[in-house]
């Protein structure tokens, strides 16, 4: 951890817009968004995996783009439009449907992050190539190894979206 982060930083009031609701919380501005969501606001669908932005398990959508909430200071998210796995988003819901249809998850723990990453992809690319999918999902680890099904479920969602 950087040295300045070790210093005590006092909490301030921060307003977060998550899944269409406004939350006013007291948090240290350097607290990663992940912990504000999980421990203060109480949405636990967003997971902790690595704490340094290398596994993707903590991904949420910020103004439509996937971000790693475990390394994003909560103060940076103020005023932004955030969507977690619990949120309402048409693409996310289609993806969730495909995830169930293809029985993607094994232990399921990384899947919220995978679904958010896939949502980010399909929101900006309606017909991704295999390469596009690999590129968009490169930041997400699945220790159970469900990659083949994740990829197929993304493709299935593209079909559903374009129907």
């Amino acid at each position: 951890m950087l040295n300045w982060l070790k210093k005590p930083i006092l909490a301030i009031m921060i307003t977060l817009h998550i899944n269409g609701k406004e939350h006013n919380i007291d948090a240290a501005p350097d607290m990663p968004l992940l912990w504000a969501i999980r421990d203060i606001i109480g949405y636990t669908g967003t997971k902790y995996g690595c704490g340094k932005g290398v596994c993707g398990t903590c991904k949420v959508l910020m103004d439509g783009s996937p971000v790693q909430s475990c390394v994003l200071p909560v103060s940076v998210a103020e005023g932004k439009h955030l969507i977690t796995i619990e949120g309402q988003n048409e693409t996310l819901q289609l993806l969730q449907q495909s995830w169930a249809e293809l029985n993607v998850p094994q232990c399921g723990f990384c899947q919220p992050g995978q679904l958010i990453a896939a949502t980010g992809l399909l929101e900006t690319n309606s017909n991704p190539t295999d390469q596009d999918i690999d590129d968009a999902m490169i930041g997400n680890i699945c220790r159970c190894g469900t990659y083949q099904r994740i990829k197929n479920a993304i493709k299935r969602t593209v079909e559903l979206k374009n129907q």
Partner: protein
Amino acid sequence: MKPIRNLSRRSFVKSIGLASGGLILACNTAVFSNEESKENRGPITDFNPNLFVQLNSDGTLILVASRSEMGNGVRTSLPSVIADEMEADWNRVEIRQATGDKKFGDQNTDGSRSIRYLYGTMRQMGATVKVMLLQAAAQKWNVPVEECTAVNHFIKHSSGKKIGFGDLVEIAKTLEVPENAPLKNPKDFKYIGKELPSIDVGKYADGSAVFGLDIRLPNMKFAAVKRCPVTFGTVKSFNKTAAMEIPGVVDVIEIPKINRPFGALGGVAVVADNTWAAFKGVDALEVTWEEGANRVYSSDKYMEEITANLFKGTKVAKDKGNVESAFKNADKIVESTFQLPHLSHAPMEVPNAVAWVQGDTCEVWAPTQEPQATRSEVTAYLDVPRENVTVNVTFLGGGFGRKSKPDYIVEAVVVSKAMNAPVQVVWTREDDIKHGYYHTVSAQHMKAAIDADGKVTGWQHKFGLPSITSTFSPGVEYAAGWEIGSASNAPFEIDNMKVEVGKAPAHVRIGWLRSVINIPHGFSVNVFADECATAAGMDPLEHRLKLIGSDRMLGKEGNPYRFNSTRLKNVLKRAAKNAEWGKTLPDGHAYGLAVHYSFLSYVASIVEVSVKNGKAKVHKVWTCIDCGIAVNKNTVRSQMEGSAVFGMSLAFYGKITAKDGAIEQGNYDDYKMVRMYQAPEIHVDIVESTEAPSGVGEPGVPVIAPAIVNAIAKITGKYYHNLPLEDHGLV
């Protein structure tokens, strides 16, 4: 026939956590007639049921899941067996997770044996409920029972009238439990052998599945722990001032080192209002350690040591025929040394637990593969009666063996007791990688004699690795008997075979990791057999089938799990056929094969690998598994897919090293995993079988790394004996 009892009217019902009112049956699960089960289960003398089925009057069918769900699909596969036999509607099934309690029988979810232990009894249970419902309907309608049939949650009469299962509960409850209820003809199975999706898939997809990390209790505190970098080092002193200055930190608590296999490592916990404050507090905390004896542990030096030990003072584990004379008379000698590093489980969900100690009672919520061992550890620490401790099992965000060891749960109990509040202990990823129960490190030396016809006439396998037993009996320096079997039982027909075990003391906690000893032995045996084929100038497939040899059974007559060489050859032939072994591949591409018998299942994989500009890529994997009856093919398929990726990660990247006693890796950036762009296309072939069901969660792993190495050898001419491949510049 196992005794099945009707508990509907007994007070016992309350104690198993089921609402009364329904038809409730319970029974012991079958103990199969193989020796392994007997060893693990012990004799069952009392009626000690571990399987509970409740049919409510609204038709809901509730099953108590005694086993942990960690991606193994057990909450789906087991109940589907009952539902099938009783002709229930799968959509009416609900699962209730059991707490850790001996009355549920063996709950240790590891060893790839949940289905193996429970399948037969599950069928019996379902069939029994069905007979009772048929009798209830016959009684209600006053017709002969032979005129009634069960169809999708209804009992139908030949006249055409029908009644729902739920509406028969009140009568069924009063009936005696029939003995020897007839089982379905397997050809009529509706769910068994099919592809049922996970019953929990919706919860996984919408984020509502509650893992250990997601438990929230009123006024719960969060804690993180600083532990000595050297295993079994202890706290000399600490200064909590800087930690206490972090906003949100409420206390600093010392955790004693608990000298039990699953006891806490010891350290200093920072308790806070949120996880982040606890992490920052740990960072700020100053601790001075007494590092202890293991500070000498450096893995490079250790590898040299255990490799040298293969050539002095070994213990002979098997000596069949005369290998020395085989070597003397050989046309060719093949010889290789294998060195494999420690591995870490690194499940996506870090170790964590919530504990709430109130007076002399304690309740725990944790992602655990072993709730009964958890209960034992908590009971021992608190020194309270066992019934005062409740262990709730959450979903597990991966386990792979790590979550069989409840040291992290004991930490939560220690801190909760000190704080007099519910506490969630959360390990950072660094804690997980640096303070695990590591998969063993190993050195192996193999030597083979090959005659003029290319036949292997002598096989010598020496290996040394710190034993899992050392975690339970400190000081053990040689592999235990069960860690030798996968070498001494190499399924080859060779006249002269010798297996020797070298000395290897442990300096870290050694644990079991998905497929355990089959990782090092499956690797060395498969790569070395391939080298023998190359030395003999033969095709590896043809050579391997000859090496496995004649059709034969090993093991005791009557044991449904006897080793069958025909089944082993069959999976290899089928995988090869699926991959079209022998066909011309693009330049720089090659196939590699491996076949292995573990957890009583037979698995072969063919991999297509390319090496371009010195980098290896795995394009395709064809796995064939014979696990006897495949209860849920969807689960078997996903376990084989997952095993391919798990095996690939350990082949490409898996390496934990120690320097001056401290583990050097700390997160997914230096203990890497295969990602989607590297993941191969995986084809899974499941052998249709009527044999008794065997393991699925683990046996797909051991074949992957050797198959990859064998393919690379076809391209580069070089067999890599040491993993990971990243160390050779291949990744």
